[in-house]
Every structure is written in C-alpha cells, then in structure tokens.
C-alpha cells in the first residue's frame, strides 16, 4: 500500500533532530533519533523522554440531553458515569461479540473544558473507525468533535513532573489518571498524568499551531531527550501494556487479555455492555486462552507470531509481542496460551527459526510500574 503519508505538526522538528522517519498508521513518524533505541529507552527510565503522539485520535464527546457518560457506557464496560470531573480511565470499545474494537483513554472533562463532556484519546490506526462507530451508535445522544487541530505529546520518566512543572504551574499536583487545563507559555493545554511507558509522566494536548514552539521548550530542558516509536514499543512491552492490533484485537475479549479490571463492578452486575454474554461467561468459567508474559532463555529475541509449545511439544499458544527489553537486558515477550499453562513459572518452548528455545511464563509487568501515588 503506497499512500501519501500524513504528517504531524512536529514532522520538520523530527527531521531537524535527526529522526529516522518511517510510515506508521498512515503517518511519517520517527522510529528513532541518532541516540538509538537502547539509549532512548534508558533515558526515559532514568530522566524524561519526549514523544510525539500527535497521530493518535483526540475528540470531545458532548452529551445532548442526558449524561454523556451514560451514553458512552453503552459502548464500553467501564464505570464512566462514576468519573469525577477531570478524572480519566483506561477503557475499551467492545463489539457485540465482546471483542476489543480499540483500547482508549476516557476522561470526564475538567470543568474548565466544559460541562457534560468527555475527552477521548484513541489509537492512531483505529481513530477513523472508532469515531465513526461512536458517532453512529450515539446519534441523538451525544456529539463527537474530532480534535484534528491539536497535537499530542507524551513526557515520560521520573523527571517528567519536575520538568513540566517549570512550564505548567501546579501540574505536579495532578494525581495519576487526573487531567487538567494548564497554560504553557500562554497556550492552553489539556494535560493528563498518564502514559504508555510504565513511568510517571504526562500526555499533553496542544493546539497544532503552537506544537513546534512548545515541543522545543520542553526539549530544551536538560533532562529531556526526544524518543522514537522504537523505544516507545520496548518501554510499553516491558511495562506489560497491550499494543492494539497485536496483543489485543476485535477477536480478543478483555478477560482473555487480562483486562478484567476494565469491567466495572456495577457493569458486571448490570451486564449492560456489548458482548456481556461472552464476557460474563468468561468471568465465571474462565476464558479459552490468557495473555501472559514470557521470558525466553538465552539472548535471542522471540518475536510476534512465534508459536508457543508445552514441554511435550504440543502447540499451546502464540507470541503477540516480543523483542529485546533494554531495562530487563534480555529478550521478553507477551502472548496467549491455554489457561492450563498460564501460571507464572510454567516452562514452555518457543519456536524460533525452526528451533525450539526454552522459556517460562513470567509475571507482567517485566519492569515495575512507577506511577505517582
């Protein structure tokens, strides 16, 4: 497929910084900068990494008559109605078979952003489909407004809060999964304390027109380095976080994916979300497969698509994400196995270039989450 790529507002800056631009979800994005993935990964764990995630989909969802959260709950199994203003949750859009159409962040907008309004951030590769689905399903109940005129940054790492507080007064007071409206250099930004690395950090929504200026301000801080998609992937894999289209897709239920916690207690009791039949059954009886962490022995990375065998050589599952974990300093993987083999410590074999590599089921995450308490 050769389509003209789309560009984020930071494209020229990535090129200036020496970013190696690759196609990703229809956009030209930096996979790495001259420092390289290993250094970028380590820098994020030790200091603060700046990521351009402007390709992701941002939107407001505004309620018409009733509560917008009640409308959104018809598409997702989380407790959205119970979100206090400014609070954010990880959730999933479900199809009628209980499969995950996408995973996303949903916040009840802070009062300064508007009443009866949700702020959504969805995956780049799914944004057109997600927004069409939401608009169609909620017609007459809610209005979706795409925020294509806004860029999105992530600032991640143990020094992210100290750095961002120099530019956004009071931002250090945000709790994990809390959002607010802050001025950076006189520009109104929507900031949430969240991310995709397992570290403390922020996602910062800014007007596209101001994106370059604000990005350069953050990158000028001594603790901050630009980080590409390569390290974004190794960071999230070590953190045990799912990549849509790989670790979860339209056939995967949240229970299989180890995401039962996204089904709120009230919603389980009511059974009022798409695919509730399958999902409640899996909650009660267990799913047919489970997402697990896997530690291959030795040094060779075992990647997506590798078959997982038990000790007898029978196929028990498949790797959905795998590679080298720079902080772990060795190969790591995630995949799905039959529940009988999902216990931590279970020995498995992984098929790599026609040969079996020994490994074992491991606890997720591979590196502890260090979210702010």
């Amino acid at each position: 497929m050769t389509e003209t790529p789309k560009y984020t507002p930071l494209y020229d800056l990535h090129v200036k910084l020496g970013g190696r631009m690759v196609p990703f979800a229809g956009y030209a994005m930096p996979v790495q900068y001259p420092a390289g993935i290993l250094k970028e990964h380590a820098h994020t764990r030790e200091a603060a990494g700046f990521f351009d995630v402007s390709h992701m989909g941002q939107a407001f969802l505004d309620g018409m008559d009733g509560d917008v959260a009640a409308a959104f709950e018809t598409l997702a199994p989380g407790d959205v109605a119970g979100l206090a203003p400014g609070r954010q949750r990880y959730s999933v859009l479900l199809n009628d078979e209980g499969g995950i159409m996408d995973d996303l962040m949903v916040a009840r907008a802070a009062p300064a952003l508007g009443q009866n309004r949700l702020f959504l951030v969805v995956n780049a590769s799914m944004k057109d489909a997600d927004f069409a689905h939401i608009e169609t399903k909620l017609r007459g109940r809610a209005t979706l407004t795409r925020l294509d005129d806004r860029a999105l940054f992530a600032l991640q790492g143990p020094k992210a809060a100290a750095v961002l507080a120099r530019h956004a007064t009071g931002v250090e007071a945000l709790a994990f999964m809390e959002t607010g409206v802050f001025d950076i250099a006189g520009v109104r930004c929507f900031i949430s304390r969240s991310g995709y690395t397992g570290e403390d950090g922020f996602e910062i929504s800014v007007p596209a027109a101001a994106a370059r200026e604000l990005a350069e301000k953050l990158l000028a801080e001594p603790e901050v380095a630009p980080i590409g998609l390569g390290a974004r992937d190794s960071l999230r894999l070590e953190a045990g976080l799912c990549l849509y289209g790989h670790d979860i897709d339209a056939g995967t239920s949240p229970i299989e994916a180890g995401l039962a916690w996204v089904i709120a207690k009230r919603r389980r009791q009511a059974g009022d979300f798409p695919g509730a039949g399958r999902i409640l059954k899996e909650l009660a009886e267990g799913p047919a497969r489970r997402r697990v962490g896997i530690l291959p022995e030795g040094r060779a990375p075992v990647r997506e698509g590798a078959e997982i065998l038990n000790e007898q050589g029978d196929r028990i599952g498949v790797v959905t994400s795998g590679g080298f974990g720079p902080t772990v300093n060795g190969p790591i993987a995630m995949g799905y196995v039959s529940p009988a083999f999902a216990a931590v410590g279970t020995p498995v074999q992984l098929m790599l270039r026609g040969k079996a590599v020994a490994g074992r089921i491991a606890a997720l995450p591979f590196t502890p989450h260090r979210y702010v308490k």
Partner: protein
Amino acid sequence: MSEKIYYTKEHEWVRVEGNIATIGITDFAQSQLGDVVFVELPEAGRDLKAGEAAAVVESVKAASEVYAPVSGKVTQANAALADSFSLINEAPESDGWFFKLELANAGELGGLMDRAAYDAFVKEHA
C-alpha cells in the same frame, strides 16, 4: 599477504586474504539496523553456498538475515560477538566481523563491488 575487500548489494563486506574470506556487515548496514542485541552465527565446518542465509542479526526492532556473499566452508565464527553484540555497531568493518570461510570458488568474487562502486550504490539507494 595482500588483502582485498569486496562489497555486496546486501551491505556485506568480504575481506580476502589468500584463500580465506572474512565476512561482516558495512557501517551503512549497522546504521540502518540500529542497536544490535543478538547475532546468530554459522558453525565452523558448515558449507555455505553463495546467497544462502548464513547468519541472523537482531536489532531491537527486527531480525535480519545475513547471506553468504560467496561459497565456502566456515572456518570460524567471531567469538567476541557472543559477549558484545555492540561490536557490530561500534566496529562493523573491523572487530565486529561475523565469520570466516574458506573460498570454494574465488571466481565468485568477480561479481562483487569494490569500495567506490559500493559507495556509489549506497548513495543511489539510501
């Protein structure tokens, strides 16, 4: 002993001393791969045909095959790489060599490029 270095379109180099060829990947190749985190090398004694997959080099992002540029019997794999894959990034055209083989057909070298031709090839395709 005189030595001569040849290059391939797959971004390998072949340094020939007498009947022994030392094979590695070029600086351009390592820069495209990024940080190397694993390499699988052929065992001594293995007979390789030109064009056959001989080694695998893994960066954080992906696995890439390294093909035998010429035919021959493997005499040695670079043991230093087992402890330090980063040699491939740091010294790809010297200490980061992959393996040596005894040439089966020195005539195959005629189909490879010299440095000037390789540099022009990279410039054209980069």
